[in-house]
């Protein structure tokens, strides 16, 4: 019915996959939409430059401005944030226990996660970590943090969580690094890039994109590391992902159900940007606390009621609203399958409200009858259900941590899906020295960690073959040959 | 071989040079490459309908002189010259004369056969027409006539459309002669046309030279004394001392140069004492 003209958007890689799905759906109904995942900052900038019609972002314009990454032009153009899909930041890690085995059921409290990433907890043997992992001390290795280099919306989202959960350490962290690459941050503005120099920077391994982070953490090539990334990538590479404790004291992974549960407590600021303190402290036992949603950025005048005319081209406005409506309802069906969570009904309705501001027409009221978003029917779509917490089956983290339960965790841990956590004692020849009460208490979990070689140095390739050995070998073999030659020559001349 | 030609009316081209051989006369020609004088004060008349041979050891400026005769010398960067070259009395270097025009009237055959490889034999012969904008009503006749006069017709008449590069060296050289003859120039310059060829081809081309000399004036550079004796009516002996420009030591009828030269150097040279 309406005349459509193509709209282009660019920005967040975080929603890239969802966007593929939405484009595919929208295109099949004749809504010409195109999106290019160049990263949130690029999206906001190109939006500001009028080279695209909308942006996808997690980073707020204020963060971008603070980081010197632009944003001023976007402000000039005017924008409104429109929520589009819910997701979560997963905490992935690569740790081996004293026996050299990969740990794959790490459980962490929100506080510990935040303090690790604010670099207050800096060693794996920290009691705060052992406390939620059966009491076993991990090796006393420094924690290497894995994150995104350059500006990234995911970084901003994650550090918003850190700032809320551990304001003290976060504040100290920011104060330490304010001119070390993260820029001067006004209060309330989150960093969108990590420090590239200074004392903390040495402990970061920054990667150019999410794919590499997940791949790296999955194949264990950075020993004793922990990082944040979109959960989709974690699933793609099977990277070990931490169970994060929520307000209810339960440990969850960022599956759609857990994200959806958490996001029911999301608050919107007047500009529709998200205020997530409620999410981080959502008392729902299935909530995954580091949940957030991503925005679309569409043009809008200064006041939020006057977005009409944001697109001078009427056909573009029509296309955009049609697309937003598609995203709000039909677009949410597949989200759980590809690693996101469908928006809760209130946010879907906000999308329609945003549409109303764009067109100046009254907002369409969504309900289970006219919207295919599965959350309207109390479901989340295929692929939403989360697996069981392996520790829960053993009586929960608290019970496991109890010192009296010596052999329990070991046996219990083995029952987990692919567990080798709760580090078994390595009774190797060097495992005699006891290193403090923690270690011995934890059933010898890390007896000889001080001597343990980093995992990367074992095994493969030329690792154990020294240059001196080559020399000796070569000499040993060549000398007889040379001698033989000399002897033969000697004989000949005789 | 020439019966066919004589039996027929010769084919003529339009817009080409005026018909018939012309007299070429060089007066006080000097040539430089950069600042180096390589040819000094050469004055030489090349009478119409006769064959003039330029002989002399390597590097004495024969090729340079020949190229001055049809304004090819100026193609070399930094080359310059002085003197006059009169073609039937008109200076080809006179102001307002087109080099193209002089070259059209004074054809040239080079040491290395250079047929156009991208063209067929027929197109090679007709190349001059296309390139110089000469017209001809009877193209096939012209092709036959030119090849006939270059002594190549018998050998190639069945494969006029095969590429020119597919011929043997001697045939290629004759093709180049045919190509030059097709525009019916007044003078034909030849720079060691046989030096890259086998004896048979050489003999064939010498024959051709003798045959065409009744239609065009021929000037030929050669290293082969016997060849000069065989084909030419006049001879000019060039010589350049060490670090000196080339000069004409002696010129005159071929007979005189070979039998009874005035200069002892000429005598030495034509009898193979050096070079």
């Amino acid at each position, binding site marked *: 019915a309406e005349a459509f003209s193509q709209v*282009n958007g660019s920005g967040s890689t975080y929603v*890239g*996959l969802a966007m*593929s*799905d939405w*484009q*595919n759906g929208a*295109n*099949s109904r004749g809504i*010409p939409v*195109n999106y*290019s995942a160049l990263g949130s900052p690029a999206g906001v900038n190109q939006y500001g430059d*009028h*080279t695209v019609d909308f942006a996808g972002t997690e980073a707020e314009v204020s963060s971008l401005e603070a980081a010197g990454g632009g944003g001023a032009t976007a402000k000039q153009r005017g924008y409104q944030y429109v929520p589009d899909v819910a997701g979560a930041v997963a905490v992935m890690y690569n740790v081996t226990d004293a026996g050299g085995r990969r740990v794959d059921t790490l459980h962490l409290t929100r506080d510990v996660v935040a303090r690790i990433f604010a670099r207050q907890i800096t060693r794996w043997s920290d009691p705060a970590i052992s406390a939620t992992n059966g009491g076993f001390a991990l090796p006393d290795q420094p924690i290497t943090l894995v994150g995104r280099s350059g500006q990234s919306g995911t970084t901003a989202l994650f550090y918003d969580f850190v700032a809320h959960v551990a304001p003290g350490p976060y504040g100290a962290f920011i104060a330490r690094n304010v001119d070390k690459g993260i820029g001067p941050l006004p209060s309330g503005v989150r960093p969108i890039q990590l420090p590239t120099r200074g004392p903390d920077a040495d402990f970061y391994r920054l990667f150019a994109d999410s*794919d590499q982070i*997940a791949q790296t953490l999955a194949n264990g090539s950075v020993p004793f590391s922990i990082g944040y990334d979109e959960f*989709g*990538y974690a699933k793609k590479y099977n990277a070990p992902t931490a169970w994060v404790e929520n307000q209810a004291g339960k440990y969850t992974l960022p599956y759609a159900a857990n994200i959806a549960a958490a996001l029911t407590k999301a608050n919107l600021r007047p500009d529709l940007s998200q205020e997530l303190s409620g999410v981080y402290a959502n008392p729902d036992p299935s909530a995954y606390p580091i949940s957030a949603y991503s925005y679309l950025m569409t043009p809008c005048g200064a006041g939020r009621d006057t977005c009409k005319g944001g697109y001078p081209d009427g056909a573009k406005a029509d296309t955009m609203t049609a697309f937003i409506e598609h995203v709000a309802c039909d677009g949410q069906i*597949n989200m759980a*399958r*590809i*690693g996101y969570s469908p928006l809760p009904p209130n946010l879907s309705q906000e999308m329609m409200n945003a549409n109303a501001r764009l067109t100046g027409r009254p907002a369409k009221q969504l309900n289970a009858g006219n919207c295919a978003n599965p959350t309207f029917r109390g479901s989340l779509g295929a692929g939403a259900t989360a697996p069981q917490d392996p520790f829960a089956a053993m009586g929960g983290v608290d019970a496991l941590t109890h010192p009296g339960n010596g052999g329990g965790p070991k046996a219990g841990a083995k029952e987990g899906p692919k567990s080798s956590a709760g580090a078994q004692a390595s009774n190797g020849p060097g495992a005699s020295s006891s290193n403090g009460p923690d270690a011995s208490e934890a059933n010898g979990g890390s007896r000889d960690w001080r001597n343990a070689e980093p995992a990367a140095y074992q095994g*493969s*390739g*030329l*690792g*154990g*073959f020294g240059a001196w*050995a*080559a020399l000796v*070998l*070569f000499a040993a*073999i*060549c000398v007889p*040959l040379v001698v033989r*030659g000399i002897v*033969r020559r000697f004989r000949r001349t005789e | 071989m020439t019966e066919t030609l004589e039996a027929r009316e010769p084919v003529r081209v339009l817009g080409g040079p005026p018909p018939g051989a012309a007299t070429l006369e060089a007066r006080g020609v000097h040539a430089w490459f950069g600042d180096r004088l390589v040819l000094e004060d050469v004055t030489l008349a090349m009478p119409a309908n006769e064959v003039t041979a330029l002989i002399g050891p390597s590097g004495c400026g024969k090729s340079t002189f020949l190229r001055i005769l*049809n304004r*090819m010398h100026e*193609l070399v960067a930094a080359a310059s010259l002085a003197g006059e070259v009169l073609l039937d009395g008109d200076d080809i270097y006179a102001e307002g004369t087109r080099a*193209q*025009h002089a*070259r059209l009237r004074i054809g*040239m055959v*080079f040491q*290395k056969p*250079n047929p*156009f*490889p*991208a063209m067929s034999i027929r197109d090679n012969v007709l*190349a*001059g027409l*296309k*390139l*110089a904008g000469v017209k001809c009503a009877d193209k096939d006749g012209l092709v036959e006539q030119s090849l006939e006069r270059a002594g190549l017709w018998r050998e190639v008449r069945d494969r006029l459309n095969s590429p020119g*590069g597919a011929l043997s060296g001697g045939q290629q050289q004759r093709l*180049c002669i045919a*190509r*030059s003859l097709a*525009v019916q120039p007044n003078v034909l310059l030849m720079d060691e046309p046989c030096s890259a060829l086998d004896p048979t081809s050489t003999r064939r081309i010498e024959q051709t030279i003798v045959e065409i000399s009744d239609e065009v004036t021929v000037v030929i550079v050669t290293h082969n004394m016997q060849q000069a004796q065989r084909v030419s009516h006049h001879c000019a002996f060039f010589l350049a001392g060490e670090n000196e420009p080339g000069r004409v030591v002696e010129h005159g009828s071929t007979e005189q140069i070979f039998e009874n030269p005035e200069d002892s150097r000429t005598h030495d040279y034509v009898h193979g004492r050096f070079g």
Partner: protein
Amino acid sequence: MTATEIRVEQARPAPVRRRTSATTPQDRLVALGCAVSATLLTWFVMHQLLVSPGWLADLVVAYLLYLGMLYLVTRDRLGRLAAFDKLVSAVVVSGAVGLLIPLLFLLGYIVVKGVPSLRLAFFGHDMSAVAPTDPATATGGLHAIVGTLEQTALALVFVVPLGVLTAVFLNETRSRFRRPVRIFVDAMSGLPSVVAGLFVYAALILPPAQLGFSGFMATLALTMIMLPTVTRTVDVVLRLVPDGLREASLALGASRARTVWSVVLPTARTGVSTAIILGIARVVGETAPLLFTSFGTLSMNYNPFSEPQESLPRFVYRYIKEPLASAQERGYIGALVLILLIFALFALTRLIGRTRWSARRTKPRSAR
């Protein structure tokens, strides 16, 4: 030859061609013996006496042993010079092989990764109706292929006339600007492709020009990369046209323009087309400038002058970064098709080169 041969045979016993190979059977025996004993020694020492750290170490040790033995044995047989010659030959051969193996691996890897999911349908539709969760076999790359072809073809429209004319300018005229132009063409060939993309982005796509993303912008960036390459190669090709042909043409009374048009360019035709095809091959896989210019899309856009357009490298780049296994496979399919395209272009040059060029091209060389 046949006639002669028969006659010779009748006259006396047919001449026997003699072997004149540089290596005698003994040499080959020695090489084989050294290889075998080096292998055995390596096995004995590395696996029986020591604990071998891996096949790579075995390989290195065996290779060094082989070289050492070859040297010593040959020195014993033939002397120092010959031994060193053998040693160097072995190093050169293994160097060349060691270089080609990884590169062939690259081709093999992409083929192996791409082939299982490549379906004919890839050439039949775009990605607009393919859900991210669909299997990799459902991939459609028509939009990318069309984009690549259109962008490259448009680039050719700029590059071919400009490049060939510039090369003619450099070779066939005596302008005093030839030197600066040649220098600038050389300079431009050093323009990093990403800078070309950045230039187009900043100059034309961003405000104030505000032309927006489109295939044409990619074309402009590609033109900047392709122009110097083509100009330089055509320049070289024109230089290969023997001067004798030019002189022959001029001596027939042709003008310069005529000479270039009727003699020089036809003679160099195959070389010029080879140069152009190689130029295409060079830009067809350029990715960096596309990141800034063509934006990319999932659906077909036949119009290169407006709205984003996909192209094969962009397609590959897009999918190898997405967090789904099937997306990765899509990337490899695109890579495979890209390689096939380049193979096809090369086959084309070979085909063209075979007709006449190859024969002619060797001429100036053998004449020297």
